[in-house]
């Protein structure tokens, strides 16, 4: 018996030729893979800025956005060790990192222990993404700090910017996180979120270099 070499496509004649491409994303250009994730992250940022009750933020959670925000926050808040021991700086990068993630984890644990129906990573995703308004406030503060003389008026502007970011972050995150709690416990679930964003706002407002 001769072995016949088999060749050819195993396609049904007449079937749409793209069906095989849709199943495997291995052949698509890298740009498309990256753009898909970037689009998802961008969509979530948009949802944070205009918080409407939407299931997509909760269903397709990802931690890219929180990681980017955390790294940015840590880099900007980092104190410079120009004079060792002078304490003339802010928190170290690792301290910001720990506060951010451990804080989000503790707030999430609290929500779950109070009987919330949201999953662990969904909650961390929402808490992380909602730091975005505070990052915008941080950028505003940095721009203001570029000026040479720091007057009280500029300080007040910075305070207002951080307060606005703080309020926005709380508003955005509660739109997603507290509706899973019964009414009589909403304040209990809300307080740690307020506390978490307050600590981050304090880090932002107290960084002056």
């Amino acid at each position, binding site marked *: 018996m001769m072995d016949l070499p088999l060749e050819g496509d195993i396609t049904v004649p007449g079937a749409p030729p793209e069906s095989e491409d849709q199943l495997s994303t291995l052949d698509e250009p890298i740009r498309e893979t990256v753009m898909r994730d970037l689009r998802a992250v961008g969509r979530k940022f948009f949802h944070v800025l205009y918080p409407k009750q939407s299931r997509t933020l909760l269903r397709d959670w990802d931690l890219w956005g929180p990681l980017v925000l955390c790294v940015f926050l840590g880099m900007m808040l980092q*104190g410079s060790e120009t004079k*060792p*021991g002078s*304490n003339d*700086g802010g928190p170290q990068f690792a301290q910001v990192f720990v506060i951010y993630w451990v804080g989000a984890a503790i707030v999430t644990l609290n929500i*779950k*222990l109070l009987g919330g129906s949201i999953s662990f990573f969904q909650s961390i995703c929402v808490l992380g993404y909602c730091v975005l308004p505070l990052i915008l406030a941080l950028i505003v503060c940095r721009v203001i700090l570029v000026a040479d003389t720091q007057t009280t008026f500029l300080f007040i502007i910075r305070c207002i910017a951080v307060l606005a970011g703080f309020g926005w972050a709380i508003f955005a995150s509660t739109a997603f996180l507290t509706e899973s709690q019964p009414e009589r416990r909403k304040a*209990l679930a809300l307080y740690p979120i307020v506390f978490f964003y307050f600590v981050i706002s304090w880090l932002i407002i107290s*960084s002056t270099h």
Partner: protein
Amino acid sequence: MSNTFCNSFLQDSPVSLDSLQFQDISHTAVSSGSKEQTHTFTDFPVSAAHEEEEDKADLLKSDKPKASSFWTFEYYQAFFDVDTRDVVERILGSMVPNPRSNYLISKIRPNPDLYGPFWVCSTLVFTTAIAGNLANYIQSRGEDYHWHYDFHKVTFAATAIFSYWWVVATVLWGLLRWRGSLAGFTYMEVICVYGYSLAIYVPISMLWVIQFTWLQWTLVIIGMVLSGGVLLLTFWPAVKEDNIKVAYSAMLLIFLMHGLLAVGFKAGADTSVNLYSVFLQCRSSGEPHTTPHENLTTATTIHPSIHAITKTIIHTTMRAVTGTHT
């Protein structure tokens, strides 16, 4: 487990298979000898199952959820089974000593929670740190102030406050157990009361920003008296049947530890102000400042080691207590 026992009884009894069919048996009908109609545990020999039933009834009475294992999530969920109203009531109750009703019995039982104590302690850690920062800022206004963020202080305060909460409460509970206290306060209840008793220090630490020494000391004393009073009134019924000396020394211990914490706050708040003021003096004079607190110079040139901080705390406390100012 009850089903297997019932089944074994059904197999042993010499009754026909008809009795295994569903029958419309009323709860009051108990025919003699037909064991398959009895669904209560009283027909069982006294065994481990019986003991467990008794234990379960006791546990349900005291509402301890030992039914879930220590390693499951539901075990801890039982300690967060509070509403907003409960938490607010407990916080307010911990600030106002009420001799007529025992705080623990009226407010905490039967539902001790960990939500309140944990978040009260966390809030306290950050308000002391923030108040310290603000006090620095206010004290050094007008100079070229670089607002610094002393993370060491936050971790130190966190360790101190959380260990006060857990360690002192555990020691007290151990003491009550050792003396065989009849009040029957459980571990979680003691932890809960101690956590809530720190709630009064949150507004006090925020008011410490105001830099009047007499005001700060008045606030400390008010806090000590109020929440210390709540603690004393709560735990007095647990020790009053004991030997009178033991009872009074337990009360004294509670009050002293509470007072130490308050003084520790004051010293901690003063430390940051003190360190920074000496640092500013050094910077303006341009040389190590030879003050009576000579060891403080080491604290300003190197980053604040624990050694320097402890020395400063001791000196500041002594200075504050004796009322002298440099």
